Structures are given as structure tokens and as C-alpha cells.
């Protein structure tokens, strides 16, 4: 069974640009979570989607947004990139109790 996949693996952008990150969940999982992990820090919760709806969002500005598609895959969009958006962005899905993480997208904003 395939795990959670994310694309791209690495991305370099400049300030002010926009970026879209993608996540495909494990087959049968309907929830997708997005996290931001700045270098050397813990995970900061960004967004939670379930059954196509945004269920909750963390303490991030509106320029962080996303959506979930009918096949439960998800996109995270970040507009007007700032230097501090440089981080590892992790996507996770879950079964009844456990979250399963993708390998992440490393974003560097110059």
C-alpha cells in the first residue's frame, strides 16, 4: 500500500511569489493535515481537511490556504511568500488513531 506522497520535494522561490504544494493521502484516508516545521523547530499545525471541508486552521495568516479534492488529495497554497516561510511542509493523513506523514516539501524563500 502506498504511503502519503508529497510534491515537489524541494522548491526555491523568491519573496512575494506564490507556491502550491500537493499531498496525496493513503488510500481510504479522508483527512489531511498540513504542518509547517521551520528549521530545528517543532511542528506547527496549519490546516486540517476532512471530507473536502476545512475543519480547522492554525495560527497562520490568510495567505496560507488550501483545499481538498473529491479524491481526498490536497493542496496548500501560500501567497506573497516571506523569508520566514522557509520551512519543511509536512502533510499527514490518519486512520482511527494514528497520523501517517509524507516526506515533506522543503521550501526555501530567497
Amino acid at each position: 500500500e502506498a504511503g502519503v506522497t508529497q510534491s515537489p520535494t524541494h522548491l526555491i522561490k523568491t519573496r512575494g511569489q506564490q507556491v502550491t504544494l500537493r499531498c496525496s493521502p493513503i488510500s481510504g484516508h479522508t483527512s489531511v493535515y498540513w504542518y509547517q516545521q521551520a528549521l530545528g523547530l517543532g511542528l506547527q499545525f496549519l490546516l486540517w481537511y476532512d471530507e473536502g471541508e476545512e475543519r480547522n486552521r492554525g495560527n497562520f495568516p490568510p495567505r496560507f490556504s488550501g483545499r481538498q479534492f473529491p479524491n481526498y488529495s490536497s493542496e496548500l497554497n501560500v501567497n506573497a511568500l516571506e523569508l520566514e516561510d522557509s520551512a519543511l511542509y509536512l502533510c499527514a493523513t490518519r486512520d482511527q488513531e494514528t497520523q501517517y506523514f509524507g516526506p515533506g516539501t522543503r521550501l526555501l524563500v530567497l
Partner: protein
Amino acid sequence: SQQGEEDPQALSIQEGENATMNCSYKTSINNLQWYRQNSGRGLVHLILIRSNEREKHSGRLRVTLDTSKKSSSLLITASRAADTASYFCATDRVSGTYKYIFGTGTRLKVLA
């Protein structure tokens, strides 16, 4: 803000020694989970302990949970260089619309 707090923040031990890291949390939980993260990669689920369990084992891992103190510990026995990673606890809260709260992590370095 993050509910979980791991300590120590960093730990350096020799291969073959045991490593213990702790996690404290603030609210009632359904379960607590430990994850490992190798440098710059995704998190790997290690073990889950439910709120009605006090101890759980998986291979070289031993997890304890004390709900009265709102704390958990992860013990890695006979550590190996390959155990070098960051370890995070995550709590599945009973209340609230967001289910998983991650701690700040313990960076473990096992010296060969």
C-alpha cells in the same frame, strides 16, 4: 501554542546506552503517540499508548503514561547510531476541533 513539551531538548549518549525522553501535556487526552524524525524528513510513527494504559512495549521501545501527572516517557534501550533522530510526542486531545498536538521534540544523538 504546542501542548506537548519534551525534555530534554537534546540528548547525546554512547551506543549501547539507554535513552530516556519525557513529554508533558496540558489537557485530557485519548491517546499519546511518539514519532521519530530523521533529519529533514517526514515523521515515522513509533508507538501509541491509550489513556487507559500505563505502559507499552515495542521492540527496544518502552513507553509509559501517567495521566495524573499528564506526562509520558519514551525509553530506547541498547541504543544504536541509527537511532539518531528527533523524537516527538503527539497528543490526541479529548476536546477541541484539532486532534493532534505535537511537542517541540528531543534531538537524540547516539555516538558510535
